[in-house]
């Protein structure tokens, strides 16, 4: 029980009370969702915050609302819950796979979608590229204010977000599209993927790609869209081999991150193969 005695955990019953507590706590406070990142602070030799505001019991953050034109996901929804809720909606295969195959079963039952987006230091988050390719938006809230921004924009500002802000929900527009998630752990499963390719395309009447979204995770410190590859896919029938070939020609725009277990070059080198797998999963 190696923790100083001065810490506190406030279990917020409502969003308002959570935002109040975060506001009052300032820099000394942080939201606590699934805890699967925060509780591992000791192995990273990081200090815990003096005050945590637990948001896991807030009903407003637990909803998954599936409408005709959008899906809204509360920030405290766990990976397991999300994967189960979207399992029947094939347009969300990418997100179902991201949420349903990350980490291990018990972690999926704890880790939240909001935590996945908000943890700046976690480069291998599965849901981030999946949501990027779905054009997701993020609603963030603080005491007295609320903002809805593109996920891409959120990713650029999340590390500098002032204390007191909280991811409240994620909004994913619905449209006719085919999606797939290709991830590459070093073992069969159970570790963080070395690289992730999330793919979403819509096809025209003759099977040509009308719109394409490709997002790449874990390769660089922050997941991002691969717009040059998207452009290369549009206007052609989706073909896994050709998509991989195009990816191989464009992969040099990525600067892989080096880590203890995976060298930088490897993360980039496997991208065309992951693109091929993702495209092949769409039946091409």
């Amino acid at each position, binding site marked *: *029980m190696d*923790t100083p005695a001065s810490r506190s955990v406030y*279990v917020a019953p409502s969003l308002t009370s959570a935002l109040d507590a975060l506001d009052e706590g300032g820099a000394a406070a942080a939201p606590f969702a699934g805890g699967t990142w925060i*509780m591992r602070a000791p*192995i990273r030799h990081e200090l815990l915050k003096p005050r945590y505001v637990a948001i896991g019991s807030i009903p407003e953050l637990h909803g998954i609302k599936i409408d005709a034109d959008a899906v809204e996901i509360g920030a405290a929804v766990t990976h397991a819950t999300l994967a189960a809720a979207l399992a029947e909606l094939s347009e969300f295969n990418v997100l179902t796979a991201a949420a349903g195959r990350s980490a291990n079963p018990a972690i999926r039952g*704890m880790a939240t979608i909001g935590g996945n987006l908000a943890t700046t230091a976690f480069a291998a988050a599965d849901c981030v590229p999946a949501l990027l390719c779905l054009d997701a938006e993020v609603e963030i809230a603080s005491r007295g204010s609320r903002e809805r921004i593109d996920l891409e924009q959120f990713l650029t500002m999340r590390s500098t977000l002032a204390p007191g802000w909280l991811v409240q929900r994620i909004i994913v527009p619905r449209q006719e599209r085919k999606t797939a998630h290709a991830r590459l752990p070093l073992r069969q499963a159970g570790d963080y993927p070395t690289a992730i390719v999330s793919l979403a395309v819509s096809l025209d009447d003759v099977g040509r790609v009308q719109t394409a979204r490709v997002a790449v995770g874990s390769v660089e410190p922050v997941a991002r869209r691969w717009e040059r590859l998207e452009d290369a896919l549009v206007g052609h029938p989706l073909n896994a081999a050709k998509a991989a070939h195009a990816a191989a020609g464009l992969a040099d725009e990525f600067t892989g991150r080096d880590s203890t277990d995976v060298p930088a070059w490897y993360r980039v080198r496997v991208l065309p193969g992951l693109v091929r797998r993702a495209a092949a999963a769409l039946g091409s």
Partner: protein
Amino acid sequence: MGLSLTVNGDHLTSTADPITPLVDVLREEFHLTGAKPVCREGFCGACMVLIDGNPTPSCLMPAALAEGCDIRTVEGLAVNGGLNPIQAALEACDAVQCGMCFPGMVVSLTHLLTTRPGATRDDIRAALTGNICRCTGYERIIEAALLALATT
């Protein structure tokens, strides 16, 4: 003040700091040493307990957040001191070696047995992604799970 926790049906009080990992409260305050803190990162599963019925690594769960939950540890799974079906199958298959991972294995597999009666060999392997065993090479554990599924 203190924390009120319900463990294996007993109402217990802890004086631990609220963010203390549940595994430490179970072991050091409640003397329930079945759950083992092995990796403290949620990878190994040796500290797995059921929180409201869901397998949860107790190293990642702050004690304060377990208040109001039904916590069931490996010590609470055996019925009247006997063995539950998965424990009995693991014993019958001579699966146990050093035994450190088994409290967590038993928790994960007890859950599997009750929630997924049709689980296949591959389902079992996937369900054990977060339960590491360093001794057995898993085969006997998978065999035992299949045996328990077939006989319950």
